[in-house]
């Protein structure tokens, strides 16, 4: 099971956090600080895995961003590495050549995507297409809602003229 997902920049800034196991706000801060220290200081050629308090943390660096996932001892690290990559590919397809800035300014969208990919700490969907379709469905809803809102306000505006 994935216990949490963490995106931190090379400077140690948090870009996204998602907790699938209960952690208090205090614990969260501590976890981020601890892991940030461990992961950011690791050299480039070492394993992408870190032992941490009886769990394993799998991380991968993309440009200036570190994607980290904390998993159980008996999980398959290589698989989790690919789940991370899968997530990045979906982000890439959604944002179009995703870069860190996209995630900084649209972190809530990254959360929506993550919610379609992982649920309750497990990989929920392994098809990029399906995830993309669901997100598109939600987005189109957003668009229609916006149109409706504007048309209603038009009507109101005309009615009150």
């Amino acid at each position, binding site marked *: 099971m994935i216990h949490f997902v963490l995106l931190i920049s090379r400077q140690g800034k948090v870009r996204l956090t998602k907790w699938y196991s209960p952690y208090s706000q205090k614990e969260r801060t501590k976890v981020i600080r601890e892991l940030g220290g461990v992961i950011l200081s690791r050299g480039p050629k*070492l394993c*992408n895995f870190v032992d941490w308090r009886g769990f394993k943390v799998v991380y991968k660096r993309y440009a200036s961003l570190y994607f980290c996932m904390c998993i159980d001892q008996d999980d398959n690290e290589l698989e989790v590495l690919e789940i991370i990559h899968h997530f990045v590919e979906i982000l890439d397809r959604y*944002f179009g*050549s995703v870069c*860190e800035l996209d995630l900084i300014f649209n972190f809530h969208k990254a*959360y929506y995507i993550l919610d379609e990919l992982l*649920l309750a700490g497990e990989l929920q969907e392994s098809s990029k297409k399906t995830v993309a379709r669901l997100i598109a469905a939600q987005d189109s809803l957003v668009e229609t809602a916006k149109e409706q809102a504007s048309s209603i306000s038009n009507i109101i505006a005309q009615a009150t003229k």
Partner: protein
Amino acid sequence: MGSQGGFYQSKEFLDLVKSIGEARSKAEEDRIVLGEIETLKRRISDPDIPKFKMKEYIIRLVYVEMLGHDASFGYIHAVKMTHDDSLLVKRTGYLAVTLFLNEDHDLIILIVNTIQKDLKSDNYLVVCAALNAVCRLINEETIPAVLPQVVELLAHPKEAVRKKAIMALHRFYQKSPSSVSHLVSNFRKRLCDNDPGVMGATLCPLFELITIDVSSYKDLVISFVSILKQVAERRLPKAYDYHQMPAPFIQIKLLKILALLGSGDKQASENMYTVVGDIFRKCDSSSNIGNAVLYECICCVSSIYPNPKLLESAADAISRFLKSDSHNLKYMGIDALGRLIKISPEIAEQHQLAVIDCLEDPDDTLKRKTFELLYKMTKSTNVEVIVDRMIDYMISINDNHYKTEIASRCVELAEQFAPSNQWFILTMNKVFEHAGDLVNIKVAHNLMRLIAEGFGEDDDTADSQLRSSAVDSYLHILGEPKLPSVFLQVICWVLGEYGTADGKYSASLVTGKLCDVAEAYSNDETVKAYAVTALMKIYAFEIAAGRKVDMLPECQSLMEEFLASHSTDLQQRAYELQAVIGLDAHAVESIMPSDASCEDIEVDKALSFLNGYIQDSIEKGAQPYIPESERSGMLNISKFRNQDHHEASSHGLRFEAYELPKQTVQSKIPPASLASTELVPVPEPVYVRESYPTTTVSSASSDAGSTELKLRLDGVQKKWGRQTHSPATSTSSSTSQKTVNGATQVDGSNTSNSRTRETYDSRKQQVEITPEKQKLAASLFGGSSKTEKKPATGHKISKSSSHMVEKSHVPKSSMEVASEKKVPFQQPPDLLDFGEPTVQSNAPSVDPFKELEDLLEPTTQVASAENHGSTAAATKSPDIMGLYKETPAGIHNKDDSDILSGLSNPPVTNMLGGTTKTQVAQSSKGRRPNLKDSLQKDTLVRQMGVTPSSLNPILFKDLLG
């Protein structure tokens, strides 16, 4: 699709994010965030706030909390947002609450109602949003409120909903197995879902169920094998391919399940051999995902009933991993090797040099993994090398968590394989000295017992040698400053018990040392207590031996101090010491027999030795004792019998007690039996163990029974959670009692000796000295065919681990109950071919997945066509570059992003016509940075004032680039 990268938020929010991004210090960032919190606090409580504004505020709250600040003042507003009618707002609300709240938060009660309503919504997106929240927020108490709806959703027409409903049910199962135990059959049904995504999701709960109870899922072996076969043969839709592998994530899950089902079951395993062999052959070992599947295959092969051919393939794969340059693969190789050596120990030898390279690698992760491997392959021939290595590493690290783990491993190996008593004591000393306070106290108790009982052989001289070498080394070690408390306890105990046993050291020397300990560690009460008791023992032995006792002056002053101590425990021990010293030799010998720590003390529960006294008293006219059960008419009596009873009478309204429900009677049994074991100072392990499984089974079954009997609580908040029975606490209490009696002594000899031992500078020696390494290899891997575990010490380990075994009984028994209830399920021969009538009506040769894929095509084509268009646009980059240059750089509003995309859109629509090779375009697209998108983003961001040359130039870099 670049338009999705646009930033819809208000200027204010963008400014906030920007200023945080540019903050030069944590303090500056905190100041900005605190300012933002103030703003939000003020604005958010305004009642007339428009919805879209509110939505943004909530997102800003999420942002604030993500940065580690407290946003709890706004939680209630997020909760309110989930009530909104508009999905747009609702979705933000759900996102925020799932990020803010843990499942035990008070506000969750306010969301349950909304979730209930949303689960019934006609709009599947609303249902999906609600299910996401269900997975995160519903706790054991609120499960009954949403359970019926979630179960209904398992048959929802939309596959996305079915998938999430399965995951939600899985989560419920994790939180409270009994609440959904009657629904387990649903997982089996969903395994046959038409949609591969739902099928894949179902594998998660099934994996967990099978982990707990393998036997009731053996019938699914054929189905799992057939699914895996079809997946490997690429019969799932192309969309599930990942880097040219067919649905690897599903393959991995299936392999995990097969590993469980085939473990120790020859018949089941034989069904798997072919498909696992196929996957071994088909796996592409050049890609990471291919290796992930390969690794899972190795795990599967080493878990199921061994097959020589598969073992060979597994060994090949492992050697490829170990020979690879990638640290990740080496790591996986070491891990896989650790699994495989259980079956074929000889395989380790061919990789000895690779293993030693990993052991000396600067990468800590790899090193630890290698220690784990060494731990698994320890034998009495190589135990000294391995444990020495482990201890060296243990001393060198700071990570307490791992230090604890590796220390307990050292102890375990030393107990199991120790070549000599001397070595054993030395090793234990080192472990305690360097990781003393991190070691579980049980380890110390174990050590004491081991010294007291000896190694289990009937050789008394060996035991006394062990003891005297322990005393030797401890007296030596006491000179060192700052020893861990646990270690000191062991030392004190051993010195007290055996310090003067062999006559080598005088009582005054040992007592002097003990007094020094008590003084030096004067703030550690436990150590002082151990020291006083040790003193008492030594004096007692002296008196019993007929020698005159001269209390040292420092000892006397110490006693005076303890007699007035604030700790009643210390005081009592001191008084006892005083009393013992005053007795004659005969009395002392019966109180404190020498070396009797392992003798069982028989307790006369009937107190028969008092019979004479009672007889006397009754003759003198005293009232005879009436057992509690026979006393009647006394006011307070009910209090002793039954708590409920007492409560009822105290209210003064009810005169008759409720009839007790059956399950309470049953659940009272375990405490009763427990109490009786607590009375016995020397609990016989057998007794505890035997009583345990039976009581837990009965309580577990009563638990399960109660779920059936219960009222239906649909929509009702369950107020009082059922108490769960915890066997863990009771077993631990019995172990601690045992250890009190079974303490022993260890002797620590010169650690200096071992410290001078050469420490390896890995890097240098790697280059220079291969003979060195080969020597190490020889000592590690050398006598592989030789001795196995020492049978004599083996029983000690089994003794301590038996408690673990007991615990594992508990979930099992409750699962058995669950499985009884499951609906018998007919297994179609081909799992993927069944299902809805529409599919069945097709000619059998048609692959249902193909059909499904065709159905999906129309919807996906639009998206992918657009995608293709954008790559085409990228190839036309010169034009777009021109366009970009023409756009004035200084446009202020955000609209220009639309302009840009508008400009680049025409070619996209033109290209829409003949795109047939969309798949190819998509897969290649991910790799290439998309020029158009990047340019677009670049302009956008520049307008906001973020310049790439400032703090972090790679903010713009393609993550995948």
